[in-house]
Protein backbone atom coordinates (compact mmCIF):
# COMPACT_ATOMS: atom_id res chain seq x y z
CA UNK A 1 0.00 0.00 0.00
CA UNK A 2 1.20 3.46 -0.86
CA UNK A 3 0.18 4.94 2.50
CA UNK A 4 2.49 2.56 4.25
CA UNK A 5 5.45 4.73 3.45
CA UNK A 6 4.12 7.66 5.47
CA UNK A 7 3.28 5.62 8.53
CA UNK A 8 5.73 6.30 11.33
CA UNK A 9 8.05 3.33 11.75
CA UNK A 10 7.79 1.32 14.95
CA UNK A 11 10.43 2.63 17.35
CA UNK A 12 9.53 1.01 20.63
CA UNK A 13 7.83 -2.17 21.75
CA UNK A 14 6.73 -2.31 25.38
CA UNK A 15 5.88 -5.74 26.73
CA UNK A 16 3.87 -5.79 29.96
CA UNK A 17 3.27 -8.94 31.92
CA UNK A 18 2.47 -10.29 35.32
CA UNK A 19 1.84 -13.78 36.70
CA UNK A 20 2.58 -16.37 34.02
CA UNK A 21 4.32 -13.97 31.62
CA UNK A 22 7.92 -14.95 32.22
CA UNK A 23 7.62 -18.15 30.22
CA UNK A 24 6.20 -16.30 27.26
CA UNK A 25 9.03 -13.78 27.38
CA UNK A 26 11.67 -16.48 27.67
CA UNK A 27 10.31 -18.28 24.63
CA UNK A 28 10.12 -15.06 22.66
CA UNK A 29 13.78 -14.16 23.13
CA UNK A 30 15.54 -16.73 20.94
CA UNK A 31 12.91 -16.37 18.21
CA UNK A 32 13.49 -12.64 17.66
CA UNK A 33 15.22 -11.79 14.40
CA UNK A 34 18.81 -10.86 15.19
CA UNK A 35 18.90 -7.20 14.23
CA UNK A 36 15.62 -5.36 14.31
CA UNK A 37 15.82 -1.55 14.37
CA UNK A 38 13.67 -1.25 17.48
CA UNK A 39 14.02 -1.02 21.25
CA UNK A 40 12.10 -3.49 23.39
CA UNK A 41 11.17 -2.66 26.95
CA UNK A 42 9.95 -5.31 29.35
CA UNK A 43 7.83 -4.33 32.35
CA UNK A 44 6.90 -7.21 34.62
CA UNK A 45 5.60 -7.48 38.14
CA UNK A 46 7.98 -9.34 40.38
CA UNK A 47 9.46 -9.25 43.83
CA UNK A 48 11.65 -6.28 44.71
CA UNK A 49 15.36 -6.78 43.97
CA UNK A 50 15.06 -9.79 41.67
CA UNK A 51 15.98 -7.68 38.62
CA UNK A 52 19.52 -8.87 38.10
CA UNK A 53 18.30 -12.43 37.82
CA UNK A 54 15.80 -11.53 35.13
CA UNK A 55 18.39 -9.63 33.09
CA UNK A 56 20.83 -12.56 33.32
CA UNK A 57 18.13 -15.02 32.45
CA UNK A 58 17.10 -13.07 29.35
CA UNK A 59 20.70 -12.51 28.30
CA UNK A 60 21.22 -16.24 28.23
CA UNK A 61 18.28 -16.70 25.86
CA UNK A 62 19.07 -14.82 22.71
CA UNK A 63 21.47 -12.69 20.76
CA UNK A 64 20.00 -9.32 21.75
CA UNK A 65 21.78 -7.37 24.45
CA UNK A 66 19.56 -7.17 27.55
CA UNK A 67 20.08 -4.70 30.37
CA UNK A 68 18.23 -2.95 33.12
CA UNK A 69 16.95 0.47 32.06
CA UNK A 70 18.92 3.22 33.80
CA UNK A 71 17.52 6.61 34.64
CA UNK A 72 18.42 9.30 32.03
CA UNK A 73 19.76 6.66 29.65
CA UNK A 74 18.80 7.22 26.00
CA UNK A 75 16.54 4.54 24.52
CA UNK A 76 18.68 2.86 21.86
CA UNK A 77 17.41 0.68 19.00
CA UNK A 78 18.27 -3.00 18.97
CA UNK A 79 18.40 -3.31 22.72
CA UNK A 80 16.16 -4.99 25.24
CA UNK A 81 15.57 -3.11 28.47
CA UNK A 82 14.09 -4.43 31.67
CA UNK A 83 12.28 -2.07 34.03
CA UNK A 84 13.98 -2.25 37.46
CA UNK A 85 11.87 -3.69 40.22
CA UNK A 86 10.33 -1.33 42.76
CA UNK A 87 10.44 1.73 40.47
CA UNK A 88 8.00 3.02 37.89
CA UNK A 89 9.60 3.56 34.51
CA UNK A 90 8.67 6.53 32.33
CA UNK A 91 10.00 7.89 29.07
CA UNK A 92 10.87 11.54 28.51
CA UNK A 93 10.21 13.59 25.38
CA UNK A 94 13.93 13.38 24.56
CA UNK A 95 13.74 9.56 24.47
CA UNK A 96 15.47 8.92 27.78
CA UNK A 97 14.29 6.78 30.67
CA UNK A 98 13.07 8.22 33.98
CA UNK A 99 12.49 6.36 37.22
CA UNK A 100 9.94 7.16 39.87
CA UNK A 101 9.26 5.64 43.30
CA UNK A 102 5.75 7.04 43.73
CA UNK A 103 2.85 5.01 45.12
CA UNK A 104 2.11 1.62 43.62
CA UNK A 105 -0.53 1.56 40.90
CA UNK A 106 -2.75 -1.53 40.76
CA UNK A 107 -0.67 -2.82 43.69
CA UNK A 108 2.33 -2.77 41.36
CA UNK A 109 5.63 -0.99 40.98
CA UNK A 110 6.66 -0.98 38.20
CA UNK A 111 3.18 -0.36 36.88
CA UNK A 112 2.53 -1.36 33.27
CA UNK A 113 -0.09 1.39 33.01
CA UNK A 114 2.43 4.09 33.83
CA UNK A 115 4.98 2.91 31.27
CA UNK A 116 2.35 2.36 28.55
CA UNK A 117 0.90 5.84 29.14
CA UNK A 118 4.21 7.57 29.17
CA UNK A 119 5.50 5.71 26.09
CA UNK A 120 2.24 6.50 24.27
CA UNK A 121 2.75 10.22 24.91
CA UNK A 122 6.23 10.15 23.43
CA UNK A 123 6.05 7.57 20.64
CA UNK A 124 2.44 7.84 19.45
CA UNK A 125 2.08 5.71 16.32
CA UNK A 126 5.63 4.48 16.70
CA UNK A 127 4.66 2.36 19.70
CA UNK A 128 3.57 -1.25 19.96
CA UNK A 129 2.24 -2.31 23.37
CA UNK A 130 1.99 -6.01 24.16
CA UNK A 131 0.05 -7.28 27.17
CA UNK A 132 0.68 -10.80 28.41
CA UNK A 133 -0.59 -13.17 31.06
CA UNK A 134 -1.48 -11.77 34.48
CA UNK A 135 -3.90 -11.77 37.38
CA UNK A 136 -4.31 -8.03 37.70
CA UNK A 137 -5.89 -5.19 35.72
CA UNK A 138 -2.60 -3.35 35.27
CA UNK A 139 -1.92 -2.39 31.66
CA UNK A 140 -5.52 -1.94 30.57
CA UNK A 141 -5.75 1.80 31.26
CA UNK A 142 -2.34 2.24 29.67
CA UNK A 143 -3.45 0.41 26.54
CA UNK A 144 -6.35 2.82 26.21
CA UNK A 145 -3.87 5.66 25.95
CA UNK A 146 -1.65 3.73 23.55
CA UNK A 147 -4.66 3.24 21.33
CA UNK A 148 -5.90 6.80 21.44
CA UNK A 149 -2.41 8.06 20.64
CA UNK A 150 -2.25 5.93 17.51
CA UNK A 151 -0.13 3.04 18.77
CA UNK A 152 -0.71 -0.64 18.14
CA UNK A 153 -2.10 -2.91 20.88
CA UNK A 154 -1.31 -6.59 20.96
CA UNK A 155 -2.82 -8.90 23.56
CA UNK A 156 -1.95 -12.47 24.35
CA UNK A 157 -4.79 -14.84 23.54
CA UNK A 158 -6.20 -15.50 27.03
CA UNK A 159 -6.73 -19.17 26.21
CA UNK A 160 -2.94 -19.51 25.84
CA UNK A 161 -2.20 -17.50 29.00
CA UNK A 162 -1.31 -19.16 32.26
CA UNK A 163 -3.44 -16.49 33.96
CA UNK A 164 -6.02 -15.06 31.61
CA UNK A 165 -7.44 -12.15 33.62
CA UNK A 166 -5.15 -9.37 32.44
CA UNK A 167 -5.30 -10.02 28.69
CA UNK A 168 -9.01 -10.82 28.93
CA UNK A 169 -9.67 -7.41 30.48
CA UNK A 170 -7.92 -5.63 27.63
CA UNK A 171 -9.88 -7.60 25.05
CA UNK A 172 -13.17 -7.06 26.82
CA UNK A 173 -12.57 -3.32 26.65
CA UNK A 174 -12.04 -3.56 22.93
CA UNK A 175 -8.44 -2.45 23.06
CA UNK A 176 -6.69 -5.22 21.12
CA UNK A 177 -5.71 -4.66 17.49
CA UNK A 178 -4.23 -8.14 17.48
CA UNK A 179 -4.91 -11.15 19.68
CA UNK A 180 -2.09 -13.63 19.42
CA UNK A 181 -1.19 -16.95 20.99
CA UNK A 182 2.06 -16.88 22.94
CA UNK A 183 4.01 -18.77 20.29
CA UNK A 184 3.18 -16.25 17.56
CA UNK A 185 4.45 -13.17 19.39
CA UNK A 186 8.00 -13.34 18.03
CA UNK A 187 6.87 -13.85 14.45
CA UNK A 188 4.56 -10.86 14.81
CA UNK A 189 7.39 -8.65 16.03
CA UNK A 190 9.73 -9.82 13.30
CA UNK A 191 6.97 -9.22 10.75
CA UNK A 192 6.67 -5.57 11.75
CA UNK A 193 9.99 -4.92 10.08
CA UNK A 194 10.11 -7.20 7.06
CA UNK A 195 8.54 -4.57 4.75
CA UNK A 196 11.42 -2.21 5.33
CA UNK A 197 13.66 -4.34 3.19
CA UNK A 198 11.50 -3.78 0.11
CA UNK A 199 11.53 0.00 0.34
Amino acid at each position, binding site marked *: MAQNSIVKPIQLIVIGGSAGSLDVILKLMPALAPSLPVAILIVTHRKA*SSEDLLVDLLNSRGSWPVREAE*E*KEPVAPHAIYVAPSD*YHLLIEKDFTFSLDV*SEKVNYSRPSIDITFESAAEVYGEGLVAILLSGANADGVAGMKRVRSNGGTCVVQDPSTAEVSYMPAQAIEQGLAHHILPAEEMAAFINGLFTNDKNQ
Partner: protein
Amino acid sequence: MEFEIQDDEIELLLQDLQERYGYDFTDYSKASLKRRINRLYSLDKFPSFALFRKQIQTDSIYFRRFVEEITVNVTEMFRDPSFYRILREEVLPVLATHPFIRIWHAGCSTGEEVYSMAILLREAGLLKKSLLYATDINPGVLERLKKGIFPLRFIKQYSENYIQSGGKDDFSRYYTAKYDWAKFDEQLTAKMVVATHNLVSDRSFNEFQLIFCRNVLIYFDRNLQNRALQLFDDSLDTLGFLALGAKENLKYSTIFRKYKQLENKERIWRKIA
Protein backbone atom coordinates in the same frame (compact mmCIF):
# COMPACT_ATOMS: atom_id res chain seq x y z
CA MET B 1 -5.95 8.73 33.82
CA GLU B 2 -6.28 11.07 30.85
CA PHE B 3 -3.70 13.81 30.65
CA GLU B 4 -5.78 16.97 30.67
CA ILE B 5 -3.00 19.39 31.25
CA GLN B 6 -0.62 19.76 28.35
CA ASP B 7 3.06 20.57 28.20
CA ASP B 8 2.65 24.29 27.46
CA GLU B 9 0.26 24.65 30.41
CA ILE B 10 2.74 22.92 32.66
CA GLU B 11 5.36 25.44 31.55
CA LEU B 12 2.95 28.21 32.60
CA LEU B 13 2.47 26.68 36.04
CA LEU B 14 6.20 26.31 36.53
CA GLN B 15 6.72 29.96 35.59
CA ASP B 16 4.06 31.02 38.08
CA LEU B 17 5.70 29.04 40.86
CA GLN B 18 8.98 30.70 40.13
CA GLU B 19 7.63 34.23 39.94
CA ARG B 20 5.13 34.04 42.76
CA TYR B 21 6.89 31.75 45.23
CA GLY B 22 10.53 31.49 44.15
CA TYR B 23 10.32 27.71 43.67
CA ASP B 24 12.04 26.48 40.54
CA PHE B 25 10.88 23.13 39.15
CA THR B 26 11.91 23.79 35.58
CA ASP B 27 14.86 21.36 35.72
CA TYR B 28 12.83 18.46 37.07
CA SER B 29 12.27 15.39 34.89
CA LYS B 30 9.12 16.22 32.99
CA ALA B 31 7.41 12.86 32.58
CA SER B 32 6.88 12.31 36.29
CA LEU B 33 6.07 15.97 36.94
CA LYS B 34 3.39 15.91 34.27
CA ARG B 35 1.87 12.77 35.68
CA ARG B 36 1.84 14.18 39.22
CA ILE B 37 0.31 17.48 38.15
CA ASN B 38 -2.42 15.72 36.21
CA ARG B 39 -3.04 13.38 39.12
CA LEU B 40 -3.55 16.30 41.50
CA TYR B 41 -5.73 18.12 39.00
CA SER B 42 -8.14 15.20 38.77
CA LEU B 43 -7.87 14.34 42.49
CA ASP B 44 -8.95 17.85 43.45
CA LYS B 45 -11.59 17.89 40.71
CA PHE B 46 -10.80 21.21 39.10
CA PRO B 47 -13.28 22.13 36.36
CA SER B 48 -10.67 23.91 34.27
CA PHE B 49 -6.98 24.56 33.96
CA ALA B 50 -7.57 28.29 34.45
CA LEU B 51 -9.12 27.72 37.90
CA PHE B 52 -6.37 25.31 38.88
CA ARG B 53 -3.76 27.87 37.91
CA LYS B 54 -5.55 30.66 39.72
CA GLN B 55 -5.81 28.64 42.91
CA ILE B 56 -2.08 27.95 42.92
CA GLN B 57 -1.30 31.59 42.18
CA THR B 58 -3.52 33.09 44.85
CA ASP B 59 -3.80 30.55 47.65
CA SER B 60 -0.50 29.92 49.40
CA ILE B 61 -1.96 27.06 51.41
CA TYR B 62 -2.98 25.33 48.21
CA PHE B 63 0.45 26.07 46.81
CA ARG B 64 1.93 24.09 49.69
CA ARG B 65 -0.35 21.20 48.92
CA PHE B 66 0.62 21.46 45.27
CA VAL B 67 4.35 21.18 46.02
CA GLU B 68 3.79 18.34 48.44
CA GLU B 69 1.76 16.41 45.89
CA ILE B 70 3.92 16.90 42.81
CA THR B 71 7.05 15.87 44.67
CA VAL B 72 7.04 12.20 45.56
CA ASN B 73 7.28 11.53 49.28
CA VAL B 74 7.06 7.73 49.31
CA THR B 75 9.68 6.23 51.60
CA GLU B 76 10.25 3.34 54.01
CA MET B 77 12.50 2.20 56.85
CA PHE B 78 15.61 0.24 55.93
CA ARG B 79 14.70 0.51 52.24
CA ASP B 80 17.19 -1.76 50.42
CA PRO B 81 18.35 -3.72 53.48
CA SER B 82 21.64 -4.70 51.81
CA PHE B 83 22.50 -1.00 51.58
CA TYR B 84 22.05 -0.62 55.35
CA ARG B 85 24.10 -3.75 55.92
CA ILE B 86 27.04 -2.15 54.12
CA LEU B 87 26.56 1.02 56.15
CA ARG B 88 26.83 -1.07 59.32
CA GLU B 89 29.81 -3.06 58.18
CA GLU B 90 31.90 -0.58 56.23
CA VAL B 91 30.83 2.99 56.93
CA LEU B 92 30.04 3.03 60.66
CA PRO B 93 33.50 1.74 61.67
CA VAL B 94 35.03 4.72 59.84
CA LEU B 95 32.57 7.18 61.35
CA ALA B 96 33.39 5.76 64.78
CA THR B 97 36.92 7.17 64.54
CA HIS B 98 35.57 10.74 64.54
CA PRO B 99 35.05 12.57 67.81
CA PHE B 100 31.80 13.97 66.50
CA ILE B 101 29.63 12.70 63.65
CA ARG B 102 27.52 14.87 61.38
CA ILE B 103 25.18 13.26 58.84
CA TRP B 104 22.93 15.00 56.32
CA HIS B 105 19.76 13.40 54.92
CA ALA B 106 18.85 15.60 51.94
CA GLY B 107 15.30 14.98 50.69
CA CYS B 108 14.47 12.87 53.74
CA SER B 109 10.69 13.03 53.33
CA THR B 110 8.84 11.86 56.47
CA GLY B 111 12.06 10.58 58.00
CA GLU B 112 11.94 6.79 57.84
CA GLU B 113 15.48 6.87 56.42
CA VAL B 114 16.68 9.13 59.25
CA TYR B 115 15.19 6.90 61.95
CA SER B 116 16.78 3.87 60.30
CA MET B 117 20.18 5.55 60.45
CA ALA B 118 19.65 6.66 64.04
CA ILE B 119 18.93 3.03 64.94
CA LEU B 120 22.16 1.91 63.26
CA LEU B 121 24.13 4.55 65.15
CA ARG B 122 22.54 3.55 68.42
CA GLU B 123 23.38 -0.11 67.88
CA ALA B 124 26.98 0.84 67.10
CA GLY B 125 27.13 2.93 70.27
CA LEU B 126 27.63 6.11 68.22
CA LEU B 127 24.33 7.91 68.57
CA LYS B 128 25.45 10.01 71.52
CA LYS B 129 28.16 11.71 69.50
CA SER B 130 26.09 12.08 66.33
CA LEU B 131 23.75 14.63 64.83
CA LEU B 132 21.44 13.80 61.93
CA TYR B 133 20.46 16.81 59.81
CA ALA B 134 17.13 16.06 58.17
CA THR B 135 16.08 18.38 55.33
CA ASP B 136 13.40 18.44 52.68
CA ILE B 137 11.70 20.98 50.44
CA ASN B 138 8.31 20.20 52.04
CA PRO B 139 7.61 21.54 55.55
CA GLY B 140 4.66 19.13 55.89
CA VAL B 141 6.75 15.95 55.73
CA LEU B 142 9.21 17.39 58.25
CA GLU B 143 6.41 17.98 60.75
CA ARG B 144 5.67 14.28 60.55
CA LEU B 145 9.32 13.41 60.96
CA LYS B 146 9.48 15.44 64.19
CA LYS B 147 6.55 13.49 65.62
CA GLY B 148 8.22 10.16 64.83
CA ILE B 149 4.86 8.45 64.43
CA PHE B 150 4.42 5.99 61.57
CA PRO B 151 1.54 3.73 60.51
CA LEU B 152 1.62 0.41 62.34
CA ARG B 153 0.63 -1.50 59.21
CA PHE B 154 4.09 -0.94 57.72
CA ILE B 155 5.99 -2.10 60.79
CA LYS B 156 6.04 -5.76 59.82
CA GLN B 157 7.80 -4.91 56.57
CA TYR B 158 10.17 -2.55 58.38
CA SER B 159 11.16 -5.15 60.95
CA GLU B 160 11.84 -7.66 58.18
CA ASN B 161 14.00 -5.06 56.44
CA TYR B 162 15.71 -4.35 59.75
CA ILE B 163 16.62 -8.00 60.26
CA GLN B 164 17.87 -8.33 56.68
CA SER B 165 20.04 -5.28 57.24
CA GLY B 166 21.83 -7.15 60.00
CA GLY B 167 19.73 -5.92 62.93
CA LYS B 168 20.03 -8.23 65.90
CA ASP B 169 17.61 -6.69 68.36
CA ASP B 170 13.92 -7.04 68.69
CA PHE B 171 12.74 -4.19 66.44
CA SER B 172 9.81 -3.47 68.76
CA ARG B 173 12.17 -2.03 71.37
CA TYR B 174 12.41 1.11 69.21
CA TYR B 175 8.74 2.07 69.24
CA THR B 176 5.56 1.93 71.27
CA ALA B 177 2.44 0.86 69.45
CA LYS B 178 -0.81 2.64 70.09
CA TYR B 179 -3.97 2.08 68.03
CA ASP B 180 -2.81 2.12 64.41
CA TRP B 181 0.44 3.93 65.07
CA ALA B 182 3.98 3.27 66.14
CA LYS B 183 5.74 6.07 67.98
CA PHE B 184 9.50 5.84 67.77
CA ASP B 185 11.81 6.40 70.71
CA GLU B 186 12.28 10.10 71.45
CA GLN B 187 15.95 9.52 72.12
CA LEU B 188 16.29 8.94 68.38
CA THR B 189 14.33 12.08 67.48
CA ALA B 190 16.40 14.13 69.92
CA LYS B 191 19.50 13.67 67.73
CA MET B 192 17.81 15.07 64.62
CA VAL B 193 18.16 18.65 63.41
CA VAL B 194 15.21 19.37 61.15
CA ALA B 195 14.94 22.18 58.60
CA THR B 196 13.52 22.93 55.17
CA HIS B 197 16.17 23.08 52.48
CA ASN B 198 15.66 23.30 48.73
CA LEU B 199 18.36 21.54 46.76
CA VAL B 200 17.61 23.75 43.76
CA SER B 201 18.25 27.09 45.41
CA ASP B 202 19.73 26.73 48.92
CA ARG B 203 23.38 26.46 49.77
CA SER B 204 25.72 24.31 51.70
CA PHE B 205 25.22 24.89 55.44
CA ASN B 206 27.70 22.60 57.16
CA GLU B 207 30.37 19.93 56.73
CA PHE B 208 29.43 16.28 56.99
CA GLN B 209 31.08 12.87 57.14
CA LEU B 210 28.11 11.18 55.48
CA ILE B 211 25.45 12.55 53.15
CA PHE B 212 22.34 10.66 52.10
CA CYS B 213 20.42 11.75 49.04
CA ARG B 214 18.34 8.78 48.00
CA ASN B 215 15.62 8.72 45.39
CA VAL B 216 15.64 12.47 44.94
CA LEU B 217 18.04 12.85 42.01
CA ILE B 218 15.88 10.60 39.81
CA TYR B 219 13.43 13.51 39.68
CA PHE B 220 16.05 15.98 38.45
CA ASP B 221 17.42 16.38 34.93
CA ARG B 222 21.15 15.83 34.44
CA ASN B 223 21.99 19.47 34.79
CA LEU B 224 20.19 19.84 38.11
CA GLN B 225 21.62 16.53 39.28
CA ASN B 226 25.09 17.95 38.73
CA ARG B 227 24.26 21.11 40.63
CA ALA B 228 22.93 19.14 43.59
CA LEU B 229 25.94 16.83 43.53
CA GLN B 230 28.26 19.84 43.53
CA LEU B 231 26.43 21.07 46.62
CA PHE B 232 27.04 17.72 48.29
CA ASP B 233 30.68 17.80 47.28
CA ASP B 234 30.99 21.25 48.86
CA SER B 235 29.40 19.89 52.05
CA LEU B 236 31.35 16.67 52.43
CA ASP B 237 34.64 16.18 54.30
CA THR B 238 37.47 14.59 52.37
CA LEU B 239 37.12 10.83 52.92
CA GLY B 240 33.44 11.37 53.69
CA PHE B 241 30.71 9.18 52.21
CA LEU B 242 27.94 9.96 49.75
CA ALA B 243 24.99 7.56 49.64
CA LEU B 244 22.55 7.62 46.72
CA GLY B 245 19.42 5.60 45.89
CA ALA B 246 19.60 2.06 44.52
CA LYS B 247 19.19 3.25 40.92
CA GLU B 248 21.17 6.47 41.08
CA ASN B 249 24.74 6.81 39.93
CA LEU B 250 27.66 9.21 40.14
CA LYS B 251 29.09 7.71 36.96
CA TYR B 252 27.87 10.48 34.64
CA SER B 253 28.38 13.40 37.00
CA THR B 254 30.94 16.19 36.99
CA ILE B 255 32.25 15.22 40.46
CA PHE B 256 32.78 11.58 39.51
CA ARG B 257 36.58 11.70 39.41
CA LYS B 258 36.84 12.79 43.03
CA TYR B 259 34.92 9.76 44.27
CA LYS B 260 35.45 6.04 44.59
CA GLN B 261 32.58 3.61 44.92
CA LEU B 262 32.79 1.09 47.76
CA GLU B 263 33.70 -2.40 46.61
CA ASN B 264 30.23 -3.80 46.42
CA LYS B 265 27.10 -3.13 44.47
CA GLU B 266 25.67 -0.57 46.88
CA ARG B 267 25.48 3.05 45.79
CA ILE B 268 27.92 4.47 48.32
CA TRP B 269 30.90 6.57 47.22
CA ARG B 270 33.86 7.86 49.19
CA LYS B 271 35.35 11.27 48.52
CA ILE B 272 39.02 10.68 47.80
CA ALA B 273 40.15 14.11 46.57
